[in-house]
């Protein structure tokens, strides 16, 4: 699986920060950041705005990055 597909798949399944994704996949943070940046520019990934302190968007509005969070609302 390519780095692009691996990062998107990991974010979709587990979410997390770029550093966490990089650690799980054994990739450099730089590469993960580049993939997420490009994916965000294409509109296929939304980054959680303002961190968890800004509250959890629920339902269809929930960013994919929050999918792996145990306290995110369905």
């Amino acid at each position, binding site marked *: 699986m*390519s*780095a*692009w*597909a691996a990062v998107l798949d990991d974010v979709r399944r587990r979410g997390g920060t770029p550093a966490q994704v*990089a*650690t799980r996949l*054994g*990739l*450099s*943070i*730089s*590469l993960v*950041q*580049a*993939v997420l*940046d*490009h*994916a965000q*520019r*294409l*509109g*296929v990934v939304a*980054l*959680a*705005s*303002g*961190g968890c*302190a*800004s509250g959890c968007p629920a339902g269809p509005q929930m960013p994919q990055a929050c999918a792996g969070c145990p306290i995110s609302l369905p």
Partner: protein
Amino acid sequence: MSCHSPVSAPVVARRGIQTRTPLPARLRVLLVGGPNVGKSTLFNALTGARQHTTNAPGTTVELANGTWRTTAQVKADTAIERALVDLPGTYSLLARSSDEQVTADAVHELAQSSGQVGQRGVVVVVLDATALARSLYLLGQVAETGVPLVVALTMLDLAGTVTDSPTATMQPQTLAAVLAASLDVPVVPVDSRGRAAGGLGALARAVDAVAVAKHPKRVAGILPPDTAVLDIAGELAHAERLFEWVAHVTAQVAMGLAPDGEPPAGSGQPPHRPVATFSDRVDTVLLNTWAGIPVFLAVVWLLFELTTRFAAPLQAYVSQLVNGPLSSVVTSALGLLGLGNSWVQGLLVDGVLVGVGTVLTFLPVMAVMFTALGVLEDCGYLARAAFVADRAMRSLGLDGRALLPLVIGFGCNLPGLAATRTLPHARQRLLTGLLIPLTSCSARLTVYVLLAGTFFPHHAGTVIFALYLTSVALVLGGGLVLRQTAFRDVHTEPLILVLPSYQRPHLRTLGMSVQMRLGAFVTGAGKIIVATMLVLWVLMALPATGQHSVGHVPVADSVYGRAASDIAPLLAPAGFGNDHAAAALMTGLVAKEVVVGSFAQSYAVADPGSRTSAKSLGEALRGTFDESSGGHGGAAALAFMVFVLAYTPCVATLAVQKRLFGWRPTAAALLGQLATAWVLAVLVFQVGSRL
């Protein structure tokens, strides 16, 4: 990682350039790279003082242009000049802001024109050795356009601090060689921060070689996208290919550098255990939730102190020099020429010299602030400050980087406006730039001190403190209103910042940067300030009746004085509808520093520096304000101070706003501030006079 200077020759790819065309008379070279990769430092090192800033066509995005000059190898003493453009930093050519769009457009435009005769240009892609994959992603996008390019490798002295990178243990030349072999284009390690400015000559030779090549080589493994416009499926497939290429190059670099066949980082194996660097240790304090904000406030306080205390004596010195000896010399010289006490003397001394003096008195403030900002930016703290302040600024639709210009505005609005350049998006710069005039600059303090001391002698400090709180409320309220109206398009995107490692500021680069910005201020805003002062002098010199001659007219009988009389009734609902207040407010448009002087002049009293005359001025003010307010002088004075707080700070601010944002937003801001000031002043007086 060693810290020696990575000076080197260009590491050119294996296949030589066979066919050549003549070097264009003035080769166009674009610097492209991500934020904080050392691109601007490289630009300064290449151009020295031969640089200026312009707006990108049709936008308010600032571009740094410069002449990159070297001596030709083949013919000694023959200077080669290249027109170098420092494009806004971006991580991608898939633009998300107007700044990034300028960079993307410039690259595509150069790609389209580079095949035409005499239109050849070269892109220098700046690769960050500490974030190789991210830089390669941008390089891949630039290479897809087909533009001739050279790679400049920076941040080599910091590459060892990135423990999950394959570049962590390499030598600059080795990395450059491996990259050049993998990419098949010239790769030049540069150290524009070091004393020797290593690699710059090699970079020039590499750029010239690519420019004269009839068929410049393309980056290995990169092909143009299938079609100009892709659907989302096509975009995803394209992204897959692009990142496969990035991973391929990264793996090649890692394999070329890994000692003894050890599995390189980023090749699928778990990365090395992170080691806390110096930057990491400092960041545990500076980015800490509890310590970060106090440290940030302390830094901001220091900036404020530098602006108001350190630069203030310099300002006073410059002002005394211009208004004292320089003015006397010019007056004496005109007297010797037989022009003493003529309108020519008035024009030159009271018009031109006062205008030039106004510009010069701002220079110390600007120099101190630009230097301090440069140090904070260059050492890496500015990015941390933005991170710390991000949440508070988000409520205004701005990111954390907007806080610093706003705080600086409390010292002086001018450097505050100049500091908006640290914001990445043009709309955010405009929104912040419109809010900065609402911060109460130190010049307004002179008005507060005079009026609060006169009308509220026992509570002057409390009144002034309340005015500063009002200023903060105006910024917050103004920001929220603008966000809900004209700035709905400003997105509250998360702040994605790659924090740079802490570095020692480079004095030469810092000096050049300050010099360039001061030059832009003098030539840009300075011209408008001087012109405005001249217009004001003319209005004061022209008599409104036939009883006086030009240049020898009391202010009250001048066109300026009559205008004040006409405006005064408009101010009556606020309780200060008198000629003196109207004239002071008109003069205050030039600079708030002259409001007190205007009061003194219009009451025909001497400089309020002495105790006796200050008392006279206070008594005169009390009498006038009591009369125009129907016995509610205190409420009228309070309304006057609120008006001074909310309306346009000075013409210099207008000039800088015009330079940064254009005429239309500046004119709208001027009208908006006047309307806001009037409404607030009327409100304060009407409520205050009934209490």
